[in-house]
């Protein structure tokens, strides 16, 4: 790393700027004097606000990334995408029937998928986007959940799709439907709720709320710490 140049020449919407090497696209643009209103959110790779397209010098392809995570390179041409216009379908979760292909009913354009894999190439989370679209076509909810779980909903897939599929909105619906139909809460949660309803812990909580700091300190010091038993995975 030490033999890298101290500065990198980047092009923001066509204008050249020299920025420090080894910084993210977002930091480089701020260094150059840009102040974000759109195109910056959590700045840690979780919110999907800073989807960016860029092209490297001498390369014919467009590349896709999150500006807060991707480092600048010499000769990179870039900009921020402020907004993805991708309509989503409203639904009432309780009314969805998981045995029917409700995904296709709500998003019929899924059937237009030409399996070009452009969505997968655009995904900054490295998800197998096209594969979950194919799973959705088959009505395989579990597979959609598995493949789409890490989606941050930046919208780059939908922006690139030649079939105008709204991948991330469809997958959101699939995950919620799977949650309510195929991933029930463990029984002890309902039992705890019944206990709470019956006021099982009220006296104990009354006593704790009324307790002096000295009493609380003594009880805290006496707590038994549950052993981390090895979970199966």
């Amino acid at each position, binding site marked *: 790393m030490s033999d890298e140049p101290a500065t990198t020449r980047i092009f923001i919407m066509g204008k050249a700027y020299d920025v420090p090497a080894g910084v993210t696209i977002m930091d480089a643009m701020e260094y150059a*004097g840009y102040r974000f209103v759109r195109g910056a*959110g*959590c700045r840690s790779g979780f919110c999907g606000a800073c989807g960016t397209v860029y092209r490297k010098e001498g390369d014919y392809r467009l590349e896709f990334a999150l500006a807060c*995570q*991707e480092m600048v390179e010499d000769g990179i041409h870039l900009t921020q995408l402020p907004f993805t216009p991708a309509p989503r379908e409203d639904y009432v979760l309780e009314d969805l029937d998981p045995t029917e292909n409700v995904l296709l009913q709500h998003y019929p354009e899924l059937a237009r998928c030409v399996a070009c894999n452009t969505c997968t190439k655009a995904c900054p989370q490295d998800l197998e986007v096209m594969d979950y679209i194919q799973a959705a076509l088959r009505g395989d909810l579990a597979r959609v959940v598995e493949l789409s779980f890490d989606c941050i909903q930046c919208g780059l897939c939908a922006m690139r799709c030649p079939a105008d599929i709204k991948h991330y909105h469809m997958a959101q619906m699939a995950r919620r439907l799977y*949650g309510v139909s195929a991933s029930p809460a463990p029984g002890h*949660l309902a039992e705890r709720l019944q206990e709470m309803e019956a006021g099982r812990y009220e006296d104990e909580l009354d006593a704790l709320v009324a307790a002096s700091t000295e009493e609380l300190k003594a009880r805290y010091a006496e707590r038994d710490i549950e052993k981390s038993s090895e979970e199966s995975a």
Partner: protein
Amino acid sequence: MSGTGDVRVDPYPAEMRASIERVEATRAGRLRDGPTAAMSAVERDELLKAFHPDYKEDKKRALAIGPSAGQLLPHEVAEVLEAYPLLEPEAVERLEPDIEVQVLVLGGGGAATVAALFAHEQGVPASEILIATKLRHGDCNTIMAQGGIQAADRPADSPPIHYLDVLGGGHYTNDAELARALVSDAPMIIDWHERLGILYDKVGGEYLEAHGGGTSRMRMHSAKDYTGMELMRVLRDEVRNLAIPVLEFATAVELLLDEEGQAAGAVLMNLETEEMTVVRAHATVLATGGFGRLHIQGYPTTNHYGATADGLVLAYRAGVPVIDMDSVQYHPTGVAYPAAILGQLATEKLRNQGAEPVNRDGNAFVYPLEPRDVEAAAIIRECYGRDGGVSTPSGVRGVWLDTPMIDEIHGKGTIKRRLAAMWMMWNRHGIDISVDPALVFPTLHYQNGGVEIDARGATAVPGLFAGGEVAGGVHGKNRLMGNSLLDCNVFGRRAGIAAAQWAQEHRPGKGTLSHVARYTASLESAGIPRARTAPMILPDYRREAVLARTLRGG
């Protein structure tokens, strides 16, 4: 993506690599012997006083004016609380309301979204609710919460046990009624999430529940290390299904109060055009989050771009006292290397799955799951009190988080499966944390204190409710892992319900900014310099050399 297919060069410089070899040499022994013992209460106190940034008294000052005058808090917070408004009060009062709703929710994160959903459930029609937020709906700290959410739902656990953990973690400074509400509502919140289709990690139909720093029972529910993102995207999806209106890039710059001092809505500013919008509301919920982007004591932060304490500023001018603002949560493990992602979060889940902090010689020096303030202080001591830190080429010091231990304990592939976000974050920079340890140092993470609320989420201003990170008292002087996602749900819900009830029974008079005029007068008599204005809205990370040559800055 970059990097794929390339021949991998070592992402660590030679000196760091040599230290990693010492970490590898001690790993088997550390795995065999188990973690360092937890500290006693006396040891914790001594460590905090000597090394935690909160205990440096010269980094704080007493507020000169306002409802909490005399309270000590960081200079950076005092600078925004003791600041002049952006608006001329007279100019806005000529404006008629542009929008009128029953419940106005300020903020766009977890607490705001939950408040809107429960205001609706209380019978307020969707069209009578407005969520107004600075950035996009979901550009917030909630979405970045990785590790999990606490709820005492297993038979071996109980809300009273959770309560004791919360109080001990907060050094017994918590508001008892707020802490009680937090632990009592937790199982019900998880149940609500299940009904919304939120996917918590389960194995064989049971929750995969783990410890967090300072917990005595395993009650951390997670969704891989995307827990906050899974929560936020589902809650937001439900708001969209219900067609609750959301105004994005519309940030509150002032609250409106009527002549009786009752909350009457807010003035919003369109971030792109700077046009003002006056919203008249029967009840207002403040869910604007915390202050990470104030960079207290110069620390980098895990927080989102808009975390500039605006809600705190507006409420304080309106007469709402603040509490516990002297305490700041530094997350023990922020990224220390590479510099490009300095200060970003390395989730506590890495430690609850077995990764241990070790020094440059590969020796463990602290129990991995102390409460956050204690763990952070121990890492600072190791780097600056004991010379056990590892230096990076950019001059930052940190300690190793021995992440390969996770796969050693739970089996190969565990990191990629349960800590997918963490694996990806470092892998983007060529570091595979299932093979090499990661360098970490504390980073500014959470506003422990905030505006004072009661257990319903009510503030000192009638008709103004608050919940989530903007509010204080729940966690006292130190929050435990997994209690912030819980907090924004519990108190977002309570504030939303209370606001709906208030809105159905009260009609405020005409909104005014006379409280702002009064506050301005006290700023003047306290001799606060005119140039200091707030809310900050967004931090400015442009280079000074560029700013100095702009038309405005030159």
